[in-house]
């Protein structure tokens, strides 16, 4: 009787799993990493599928054997004293189930190593005149991108389509991790340490990225967008980049805590705080932080501070409140 109940629950669990699978296939998501749009990400997915073939087979073997034995050798009313055959082991079997996994792991490792250079090594991209190099500086809680000619953008990385882009990643405060699933894996942003990755997006469009290493209270809000454009759009954007810097800084590094209008949220209301217009006091505060406020402007250039100040005066500061 317990066996019948067991089979019933098993059927229930299986149908739940089937339903789940159906839902997942309908949405086309969740059974492999995100659809790749860069050669490195594609090779990671190939490795994933290769490993899934072997592990899938082992899964079916082990769970199949388990269910088969459970059904076949169940008690069926035998006394507890009824013993099975007293078999203590079999050396040959032990050798087989040690050696076969070794071979499977060797097959998995070989394939991964075969794919590895295409994932890890930044292509020399001679035909394009070498990779485009973008510096990624991670801060609590935003991404800062510096382009070869010194332009800066916040939380939004612009890149030309079909062009090899190398990203050099570091952090200005705590550990973060650069991750745009469709364009490759995670690489940590660690202060005092530089990591590299690359991508070559095969399609124009926007790709969403997220911070992959827990970095504090706004970790969930630390998102990035990679805006892949045609070469002409990219060049045009570069020319205007500096004019939107102040606003980007406000939205990326201030507004997540203080609100888009500066009326407060996690951080206090600053829209009417005169400090916003005082270069010296403001600069010291944002470069060094205070209490719960992180040093958001750690490592900023003079030009960046000026851009923020200009935007604050023009777009955020509402004058002192009537009370004082």
């Amino acid at each position: 009787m317990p066996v019948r109940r067991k089979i019933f629950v098993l059927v229930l669990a299986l149908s739940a799993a089937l339903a789940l699978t159906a839902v997942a296939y309908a949405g086309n998501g969740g059974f492999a990493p995100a659809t790749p749009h860069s050669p490195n990400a594609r090779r990671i997915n190939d490795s994933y599928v290769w490993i899934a073939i072997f592990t899938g087979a082992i899964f079916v073997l082990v769970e199949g054997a388990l269910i088969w034995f459970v059904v076949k050798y169940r008690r069926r009313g035998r006394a507890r004293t009824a013993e099975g055959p007293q078999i203590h082991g079999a050396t040959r079997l032990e050798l087989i189930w040690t050696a076969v996994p070794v071979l499977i792991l060797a097959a998995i490792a070989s394939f991964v190593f075969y794919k590895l250079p295409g994932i890890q090594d930044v292509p020399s991209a001679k035909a394009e005149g070498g990779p485009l190099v973008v510096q990624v500086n991670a801060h609590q809680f935003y991404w800062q991108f510096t382009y070869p000619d010194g332009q800066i953008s916040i939380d939004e990385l612009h890149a030309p389509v079909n062009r090899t882009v190398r990203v050099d990643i570091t952090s200005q405060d705590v550990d973060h991790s650069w991750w745009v699933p469709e364009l490759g894996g995670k690489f940590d942003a660690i202060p005092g340490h530089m990591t590299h990755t690359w991508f070559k997006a095969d399609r124009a469009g926007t790709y969403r990225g997220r911070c992959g290493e827990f970095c504090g209270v706004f970790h969930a809000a630390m998102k990035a967008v990679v805006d892949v454009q045609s070469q002409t759009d990219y060049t045009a954007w570069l020319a205007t980049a500096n004019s939107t810097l102040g606003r980007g800084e406000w939205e990326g590094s201030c507004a997540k805590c203080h609100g888009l209008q500066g009326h407060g949220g996690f951080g206090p209301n600053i829209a009417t705080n005169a400090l916003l217009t005082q270069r010296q006091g403001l600069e010291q505060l944002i470069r060094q932080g205070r209490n719960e406020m992180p040093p958001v402007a750690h490592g900023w250039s003079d030009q960046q501070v000026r851009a923020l100040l200009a935007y604050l005066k023009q777009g955020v500061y509402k004058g002192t409140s009537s009370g004082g």
Partner: protein
Amino acid sequence: MQPYRPDWRQGRVMGWITTTDHKRIGILYIGTSLIFFAAGGILALLMRGQLAQANEHFITKQSYNELFTIHGTTMIFLVVVPIFAGFANFLVPLMIGARDVAFPRLNALSYWFFLFGGVVLYLSFLAKYGAARSGWYAYPPLSANMFSLGHGQDLWILSLHLLSLGSLLGAINFLATIHNMRAPGMSWMRIPLFVWSIEIYSALLLLVLPVLSVGLTLLLLDRQVGTHFFEPQDGGNAILYQHFFWFFGHPEVYIMILPAMGIISEVIPVFSRKPIFGYKAIAFSTVAIGFYSMLVWAHHMFSVGLPNFLNVFFMLSSMVIAVPTGVKIFNWLATTWRGNLIFDTAMLWALGFIAVFTIGGLSGIFLAAFPVDWQVTDTYYVVAHMHYVLFGGSVFGIFAGLYYWWPKIFGRMLGERLGKAHFWLVFLGFNLTFFPQHLLGLLGMPRRVYTYSEHGLWQTYNLISSIGSGVMAIGLLLFVVNVVQTSRKGARAVNDPWLADTLEWFTTSPPPPHNFDRLPYITSARPLRDLRRRLAEASG
């Protein structure tokens, strides 16, 4: 006949506080760990409540970060590691035919370190700015003064120091006991496989806990004295801490799974009415896992940007561990083959262990391949993997052990009806909670986010996961009901209710303070079965 009633069952509080009896300390360990299990479980339910829907506001971001930090710390340091110390305390002397552990007073000290370590951790919620909120691994610079204000982090370090000290003393005690106090005839190839697992559990604790203590002490110095060991802007190195932490942290995973595997290796043969298949293979695979576990730590650091040869080394060493783990699973399956399988609750948990731990082991192979790890690390995929191993593995093993040894520990049989309902609800709830998390990780959901704005599949999987956690909670409540009912009117247990193989079933249930009046001859790894056969031959 009045069952044997040891004097410590008379309900004297002082007796419990001053005890040095390994059995009472074992019960204290198990009881305290189960209370912390409930506390850590409540933290997890709060998190699943917060994540049940997109853009939920049930919990604030700071509180959420405290929740997952203390949840992880609780489950690892206050539940799984100490509950196995509890099992080991109660069982190791009984299993090897000893009177007590080697150092009974040290043993009591270990327990009190553990209890007060836990109390410090939970009281840290009352600190200014709240409890620690930089994850159970507390990476600097996030755990440094500047980014973790208040004393929550310092109290967390203090708590871990106390817990480590307790575990270290316990480990020394178990090693001394197993090496020196085995009964005549109890050779290394005859000790129960659970004792083998405690041998390796203790050896690993002894080898890796000091490394954690060093890392935490340096972190404390950075926070309180103004040193710069891990502060890059002053010439320190943030990655160094990660090496300290994971050199401890990965063996810790095996510290938490090997005793569960030891329990499974005891339960499956008894309820299959067969000897364990490949005793030596299982014993040696335990040793092999222990050895390799100290060579794999940097697979937690694949995304740090280590030199390629290190990534390759740690990928291969991590994959190698799959081999001895596979050996165990195949041997357990072979043990059930042609057996007389009795599906008592303990056996259900053991079979459930094989079913779900296999999934956790296989998902680990994806994580070992470092380019794939770059995609899935620090996502919900890892949360799923790790819970399949630590819940589906360790906790299923713990429940198998509780249902199996409860009669020996307390002299009453846990109820089978409630036990089975407990198992099936937790089994179902567990898979509902954690299987969708693999898919969430692959969809791109990072770990440790207090909320998400995506709808569609993200929302569906998260909701399923949260519902599953509720189903699990109901199952776990049934265990509490079962314990209460059993203590009131559970059936009295005879010495050896399961017709088991090992020495602890030779004495009364519960055992007297001195454990054994005398011991049977030990001529194999199954002295009790030998004894039953000798008696059967003598009588007829």
